[in-house]
């Protein structure tokens, strides 16, 4: 029987609305007690030194390069980065080589993760074969193999009939469809937000309408089919009213945003900085502020890292040829804590978007410090300032949009089922 007692910690659990300086006990990998606790014999005592003890994060959008692009990221390297960032559950995108569109491949991911990763790894499977066809993948078989939801990753489903069928068929099993909603034709050869800056830099712009047009279509189809739908990433303020309305109409719609879109805006691509080349693109400052407010108001449910490792060859290119995407699983928590400090959003609100809400949307028994829950936890110093240096991050690829950013909030330790998977604490 293994026991851990956390003393002198600020326990924050969004699901149970707890935010208090107290103690927490872990027994056999499960949370057993919270409150004023006295140490037992043979119990390991951890002095939290006033740090926050929060549920381990659930990152709903992580790409690794395994299988197919192991030089960019493996499940093992992504897992290490996640642990260092306080993320205890990674939801993995299916855009690998081969694409995760077969039950055997879901099983492969689960086995590889069991053997090489310390944090929980749960795959999503492709909606359509190869993520680029109009042939549905086998939702039932994939679900039974362990796929938690269905998405074509950063590929949009342009064919409205295919989307209708996918939503309709998914609703048979109450399966969740996660869509990267962007119209490829309006996206065209765009590489950044369309506006004054793209005009000045001579780069092709992506209009906000590329997103809103697709969201409007999707929401009509959700209405038609009654399916559960999650909008993977919203980038534009113009997209928010439609989501609010859909929810008010009672549709099963939820919505995510990347941490990068909450902290950065299009000006970060100035000087052709390809690390800030994202899909969807970073928008203007008014959009960023609207996204922050939407997170605060609960219009946006989930914050993801949109972790997308790209090697130097893919990024150190002229801007229009550079790959889209940024790593971020290691900086997701610190980004949100920085947002709390900078924009004055409640800590419990930002944490809800990476714990309680993704767990509810995905139907996961995680993201909480409830008694009896698995002890997936992160000990974090809320106030500690540091500067993100991409070279110090654990990912194999160093394409961090937040590289050089001054942030607050440093992970001191991370636990999965009560076992430390990362720790800066002195041996006690």
């Amino acid at each position: 029987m293994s026991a851990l007692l956390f003393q002198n910690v600020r326990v924050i659990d969004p699901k149970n609305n707890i935010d208090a300086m107290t103690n927490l006990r872990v027994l056999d990998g499960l949370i057993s007690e919270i409150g004023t606790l006295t140490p037992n014999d043979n119990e390991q005592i951890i002095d939290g030194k006033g740090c926050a003890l929060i549920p381990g994060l659930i990152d709903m959008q992580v790409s690794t390069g395994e299988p197919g692009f192991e030089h960019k990221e493996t499940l093992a390297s992504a897992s290490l980065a996640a642990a260092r960032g306080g993320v205890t559950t990674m939801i993995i995108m299916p855009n690998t080589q081969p694409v995760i569109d077969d039950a055997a491949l879901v099983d492969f991911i689960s086995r590889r993760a069991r053997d090489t990763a310390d944090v929980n790894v749960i795959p999503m499977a492709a909606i359509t074969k190869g993520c680029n066809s109009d042939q549905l993948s086998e939702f039932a078989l994939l679900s039974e193999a362990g796929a938690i939801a269905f998405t074509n990753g950063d590929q949009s489903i342009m064919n409205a009939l295919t989307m209708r069928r996918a939503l309709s068929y998914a609703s048979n099993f109450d399966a969740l469809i996660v869509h990267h909603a962007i119209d490829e034709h309006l996206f065209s050869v765009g590489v950044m937000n369309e506006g004054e800056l793209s005009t000045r830099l001579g780069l092709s712009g992506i209009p906000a309408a590329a997103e809103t047009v697709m969201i409007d279509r999707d929401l009509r189809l959700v209405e038609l089919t009654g399916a559960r739908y999650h909008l993977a990433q919203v980038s534009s303020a113009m997209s928010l009213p439609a989501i609010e309305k859909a929810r008010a109409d009672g549709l099963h719609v939820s919505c995510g945003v990347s941490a990068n879109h909450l902290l950065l805006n299009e000006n970060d691509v100035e000087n052709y900085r390809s690390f800030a080349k994202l899909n969807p693109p970073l928008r203007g400052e008014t959009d960023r502020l609207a996204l922050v407010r939407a997170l605060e108001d609960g219009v946006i449910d989930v914050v993801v890292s949109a972790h997308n490792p790209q090697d130097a060859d893919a990024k150190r290119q002229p801007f229009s040829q550079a790959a889209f995407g940024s790593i971020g699983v290691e900086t997701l928590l610190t980004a949100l804590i920085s947002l709390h400090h900078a924009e004055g959003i409640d800590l419990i609100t930002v944490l809800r978007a990476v714990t309680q809400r993704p767990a509810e949307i995905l139907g996961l028994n995680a993201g909480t410090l409830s008694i009896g829950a698995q002890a997936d936890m992160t000990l974090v110093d809320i106030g500690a300032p540091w500067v993100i240096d991409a070279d110090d991050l654990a990912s194999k690829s160093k394409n961090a949009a937040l590289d050089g950013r001054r942030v607050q909030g440093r992970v001191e330790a991370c636990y999965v089922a009560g076992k430390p998977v990362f720790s800066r604490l002195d041996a006690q």
Partner: protein
Amino acid sequence: MTSRTKYLQFPHRHLLGIHGLSQQDIIALLDRADHYVALNRQQNKKGDALRGRTQINLFFESSTRTQSSFELAGKRLGADVMNMSVASSAMNKGETLIDTAVTLNAMNPDLIVVRHASSGAVALLAQKVTCAVLNAGDGAHEHPTQALLDALTIRNRLGRLDGLKVAICGDITHSRVARSNIALLNIMGSQVNLVGPKTLIPKDVDRLGARVFHSMREGLAGCDIVMMLRVQNERMSGNLIPSTREYYHLYGLDQEKLDYAKPNAFVMHPGPMNRGVEIDSSIADHPEKSLIREQVEMGVAVRMAALELLATNLDGTPR
């Protein structure tokens, strides 16, 4: 000229764009170019400002006039000039760019002149080399020597660059010439009118310091200079304009449309021209109104001035 003022004459390591230059920088370049206009009209055109220097013309995008203009400019100043036309295999352009930059830099050139199809590519290359870099056109971003030669042409004809009204007509979205000219004319205190169909005018371009018009009649009204831009054939396939015939009908410069501008207005074109698409031959070849051939002549002089001023900042140049 004292050594100190020579150094301060052009305080930039590279010439990557008009953006970032001051009025004084532009005047210094144009004044020096004037000197070379005179030299180029003599029988002995040879100068020695770049003697012993190595200049590489690195063109990732095919070009006849700009490349030959830079080649002639370097040779007339006494530099050893090497032309490299990098076949743009679509496979790994970017790799080629950085690899080529590092490779060429190891050969110790003093000046590299670069053209590339991607915006920002020349600035990226400039980060990887220790010599001076001249932007000969990057994507739809900048083409600074074109704007400078346009300015020299205008200044020689009208005697000034302030208080003028200049119309730039055609495909603004894909034009680096337009962007560099908007920047330069704003710095010098002239007004820019942009004229074209909405499909070829980029978003929020008015915030760069220009007025936007969609009819030639309104856009050319009161203009001293009418600059026409080349319309690329691929714009038709992208549905940006339905046909060359319709484009010529609306925006092709003929005598009737030119009459909307000031009576003594001049016509310019960066070339190469599509006769009968954006400009009528009678205008392009008009002996008094067309400055198109003069632009080519000014091009060599401006590039000599730009190469020389950048070279003065290189190590080893006597100050």
